């Protein structure tokens, strides 16, 4: 396992300051997982080590393996879907849970181990020290050694260009699910979150609702276990579906952003 790259003194100071400024903040780590029994325990332990103050909820999307049991044995709260709902609906369940229980911040960390829990404090600090409602951990702002297959990188660049043009701000990693949301963003997502392939579309629906989005550089790992569900045909379908969803979302009436105080 590769260690987290050393943060600069300025970044370290910022992280310390942020946690000192927001001691009472209730933080929920949302871990969506589908057939991740090999990696889920490892992810939970690393998250707990990185942010001991956070509550952890694993959302098991109808896994056929022992994902839920493994997560429970690592003392995480587990929400088990009655059947496979797909990533959008699965993650949204976490936002509903967070909004029902009054969490101030959720951070989504994928159950396959791609997201490095050591980066959580950086996401949290960026959320707390800016006026943003969502902070996205991006693999591509800085080169931190993450290699993507060429075709997927191309798709990612096209989506990034489309979303950047629409939102008039630079988005580099629209498919990253490594995200921190504040109360307003949680409340909005609990009510309205895309069904499948949600990440790029959510950036645009957030922007349409007046929620502010920001990216910070993070390092990501290759997968620990399990298999990626991405095939060339699915990738092509992904691109078409997401592009259509984004363009049509522009034709909808703007939604007002929730006040997040409920």
């Amino acid at each position, binding site marked *: 396992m590769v260690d987290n790259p050393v943060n600069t003194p300025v970044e370290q100071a910022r992280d310390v300051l942020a946690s000192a400024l927001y001691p009472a903040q209730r933080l929920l780590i949302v871990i969506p997982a589908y057939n991740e029994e090999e990696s889920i325990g490892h992810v939970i332990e690393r998250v707990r080590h990185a942010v001991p103050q956070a509550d952890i909820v694993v959302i098991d999307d109808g896994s056929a393996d022992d994902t839920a049991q493994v997560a429970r044995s690592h003392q995480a709260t587990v929400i*088990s879907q*009655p059947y496979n709902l797909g990533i959008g*609906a699965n993650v949204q*369940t976490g936002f*509903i849970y967070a909004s029902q229980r009054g969490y101030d911040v959720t951070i989504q960390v994928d159950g396959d181990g791609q997201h490095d829990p050591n980066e959580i404090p950086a996401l949290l600090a960026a959320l707390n020290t800016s006026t943003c409602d969502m902070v996205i951990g991006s693999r591509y702002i800085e080169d931190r050694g993450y290699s993507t297959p060429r075709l997927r990188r191309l798709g990612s660049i096209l989506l990034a260009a489309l979303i950047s043009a629409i939102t008039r701000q630079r988005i580099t990693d629209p498919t990253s699910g490594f995200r921190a949301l504040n109360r307003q963003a949680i409340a909005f997502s609990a009510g309205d979150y895309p069904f499948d392939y949600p990440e790029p579309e959510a950036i645009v629906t957030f922007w349409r609702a007046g929620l502010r989005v920001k990216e910070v550089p993070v390092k990501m790992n290759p997968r620990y276990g399990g298999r990626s569900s991405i095939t060339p045909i699915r990738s092509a379908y992904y691109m078409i579906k997401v592009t259509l969803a984004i363009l049509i979302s522009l034709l909808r009436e703007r939604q007002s952003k929730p006040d997040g105080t409920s």
Partner: protein
Amino acid sequence: MFNALSQTQIIMRLGPIFLFVVVLELVRRRKLREDYSLGWLFTFGVLVSMGLFPQVILSSIAEFMGIIYEPTAMFVIGMGLMMIILLQFSVVITRLSRENKQAAQVIALLNTRIHELEERLDPQEEN
């Protein structure tokens, strides 16, 4: 036009009538909801009336559409009505899948809540 009916004319008359009756029977047996049967009844009703009175309805429609062979006009209109019904089905499926998703989410959250409450009642019990 009182000579024997051609095969085409027989099919044009009997086919829609048969399907119209099938829809009514499905509703009677509660295999099909009344509201979803309306589109089919309308479609087959239009086709039945075209098949029974081709000179009155079908020929004028065919002429209006610029179609020389009259049964083709019946085919085109039947197909158009069916596309509308299929589109309506997609809308219904979309609504059902959204409601289904919401129901599943509520079940998952309630299960977690029940699990928590059970543990609070009897902390010794394992899972």
